[in-house]
């Protein structure tokens, strides 16, 4: 077993021992969704109109929050140092970490979103669009987020800094994701949006791990 697969396995075991790691993003997602009707307007027609956007915003914020811990623990307890010392490919490591992160944040979120969209009175036609846009979009969120997390891993009060660094990069995904769902809701074509998400996913899958690896190396010279 190589160090990469061992790390993936280890991180999944840790997540299994700390159910909070994957339950908390879900709960946060749920709560942000619940805030809107309370703060703005609980009228079902109104909600149905904003559902697509709000679900996507909530998913984005939930992912953002779970990112903070992605590398921080590894930096603090010396795991990352051992990674760097081991001489194995940081690219593979980055991809592995992102994969685990997606498994415990993006994936559960994607699976649960259709249920929660019920609360927001999402039009019936939009459910499949919601599911597929999240399925394609959340890995991008994890990939881009990992870049920010790696950059801010060694930094005090990194959580907010991370949001600052990452949010502008998330905008295109938000726009296309939300618009796919919205268009599905008014029975319009949404293949284009999904296509954009898919190609962006490919792009970020090839480029983001490089940036992550470079950023992690910053911890070398501490």
């Amino acid at each position: 077993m190589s160090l990469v697969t061992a790390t993936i396995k280890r991180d999944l075991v840790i997540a299994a021992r700390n159910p909070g790691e994957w339950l908390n993003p879900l709960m946060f997602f749920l709560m942000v969704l619940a805030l809107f009707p309370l703060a703005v307007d609980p009228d079902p027609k109104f909600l149905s109109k904003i559902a697509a956007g709000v679900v996507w915003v909530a998913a984005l914020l939930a992912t953002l929050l779970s990112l903070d811990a992605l590398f921080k623990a590894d930096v603090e307890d010396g795991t990352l140092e051992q990674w760097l010392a081991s001489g194995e490919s940081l690219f593979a490591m980055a991809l592995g970490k992102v994969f685990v992160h997606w498994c415990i944040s993006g994936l559960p979120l994607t699976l649960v979103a259709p249920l929660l969209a019920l609360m927001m009175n999402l039009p019936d036609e939009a459910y499949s669009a919601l599911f597929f846009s999240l399925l394609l979009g959340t890995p991008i969120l994890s990939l881009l987020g990992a870049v920010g997390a790696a950059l801010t891993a060694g930094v005090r009060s990194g959580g907010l800094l991370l949001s600052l660094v990452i949010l502008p990069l998330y905008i295109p995904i938000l726009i296309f994701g939300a618009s796919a769902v919205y268009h599905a809701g008014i029975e319009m074509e949404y293949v284009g949006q999904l296509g954009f998400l898919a190609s962006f996913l490919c792009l970020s899958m090839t480029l983001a791990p490089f940036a992550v690896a470079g950023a992690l190396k910053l911890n070398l010279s501490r």
Partner: protein
Amino acid sequence: MPLSRPIDQLNRFTAHCDLSAHQVSCERDDRILFENLDLSINKGDLIQLVGPNGAGKTTLLRLLAGLNQDFDGEVRWHGKNIQQCFQDYARQRLYIGHLSAIKKVLTPLENLRWFVSSWPQVKEDDLWQALEEVTLAGYEDVPCQQLSAGQQRRVALARLLITPTPLWILDEPFTALDKAGVAWLEGHLARHVSAGGTVLITSHHALSEIPGLRQIELGVQK
């Protein structure tokens, strides 16, 4: 700590150590820590870096381990710059720093399993034996957060029993160990050296006489 079995794995490594530093200089915050240092570390050496607090021992150690590139000069492994043959170098040396890379929610056994994942020749049985040898028998399945400071250090040190690398680089390995632990570790280092391995440590602890022991003093000029 009784040494219950012959340490056969010590002889597993085939490569021998040939590490050298050439005109290495390093400064931090306008203070020169060391300047034009030449160093040659070979098979059978046991080198202890000594010097007052803040002399630069940790800095030198990390630099020799290839974990710090912020210096002038060159470090070579078998005649090649370590950054050029990093993968090769990394597989031949073990670095244990202040941070132990131990995940607190995992058990000692699970932690060890991760550490050795790069060496497929290590058997599960070796892990159990190593834990037994560092007197953690019975703690294999206790999460590490419930272990005392010294017990956690023993988990990290158990790697010395299983990873087949000729060169060990250890930063203050005696920290938190009790008397028996210190005696065991000294003996183990001596055995490694006599079996043709190489050890490079920092320690404020006065090592008992071990054949091959050489001290390098840093920071006397201050």
